[in-house]
């Protein structure tokens, strides 16, 4: 199965949570340990090893925070 590599431009994240809602593998969440320049907990991968690189999160993101590549 394909594996995804996800990169985040975290400073643009406004924590709307759309990617978390639409991730079919349910592996995304807010990074409660950091606060970005806009004052939000930015989104991140909770289980990066489970990502299959479908790219739905990147398609949902209104702020172009997420880029998905495939291994």
């Amino acid at each position, binding site marked *: 199965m394909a594996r995804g590599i996800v990169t985040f431009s975290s400073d*643009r994240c406004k924590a*709307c949570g759309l990617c978390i809602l639409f991730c079919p593998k349910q592996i995304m969440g807010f990074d409660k340990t950091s606060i970005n*320049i*806009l004052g939000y907990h930015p989104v991140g991968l909770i289980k990066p090893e489970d990502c299959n690189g479908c790219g739905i999160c990147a398609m949902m993101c209104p702020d172009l925070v997420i880029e998905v590549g495939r291994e």
Partner: protein
Amino acid sequence: MQRVLMKGNEAIAEGAIRAGCRGFFGYPITPSSEIAEYMARKMPTIGGVFVQAESELAAINMVYGGAATGARVMTASSGPGISLKQEGISFLAEGELPCLIVDICRGGPGLGGIQPSQADYFQATRGGGHGDYYIIVLAPSSAQEMMDLTMLGFELADKHRTPVMLMAEGTLGNLIEPVLVRDEVTEFVDKPWAITGCLGRQPNIVNTLHMPVEQLQTRNQHLTEKYQAIRSQEIRSEEFLTEDADLILVAYGIMARIAKKAVMNARSLGIKTGLIRPITLWPYPYGVVNKIAQTCKAMVSIEISTTGQMIEDIKLATAGKVPIHYIGEIARTPNPEEITQQLLVIAAKEGLI
């Protein structure tokens, strides 16, 4: 707390209900009508009062009556309607009656259009009606803040016995965003001055006519002291990347959100930019703007208005310390890239790049 998708206007209405508002008096006008629609649906189910008045003048005087009984009441309109309400607002200020007036701005002058605008700034922050008075003016910049500042507005109104205005652009009123629905307010301040039927006490009188010279002077002196207290206690503003900035943007409402993105764009292009967002338009954060003017090299006022209105407050605050530029247009909100382009021009002019 529940997270729901809400229109900015609906967030105001729901926030008002949660703040204990049980009286809405209004006359519909685009782009504020959803507030009245929401209230018309909700008020009858929670024991509140919704009246679609015969005119804006009637509505604001119903607010006067409702507020005089100590109830939390409000009205909502847009620029042309707020102009009609000015007489009532002046009376509310003199009667010291707490209430919330919502102005979802559209372009003017005259009937103007229904596109977004911030050109009601002077009207809102300079009192608007006749006589020596100010009202607190809050400027939200998201649907969430539409709810939060509505609730804060009622609190400030009761605390200082003053009308409070919530001023937002039509864009915000009609923008649908996720909103964390706040808990109902359960604690209210006492209103011993309210007209509630004088069983067992001396009658309370709410009056705005003071014919004797001394009475009028005492009255105005009292109001002036109250405004001074509000100035010292209630100024709110937000700063974004201002510490090391050479070029400071000043914007409020939805423009502040767009300006924030422009600040990040400009920083990636090597211009040290920052943003001040006044949350209270009156009292204006003169102190904050003045403090930052000591360390920055130039300021830019960004408004949805062609003449530039808030820029006068920035000039008052900076007292000639730094050059002040203006970016503004009416009836549409520029995108961050357009603002970034204009910032590049300004930065070049000021020798910042």
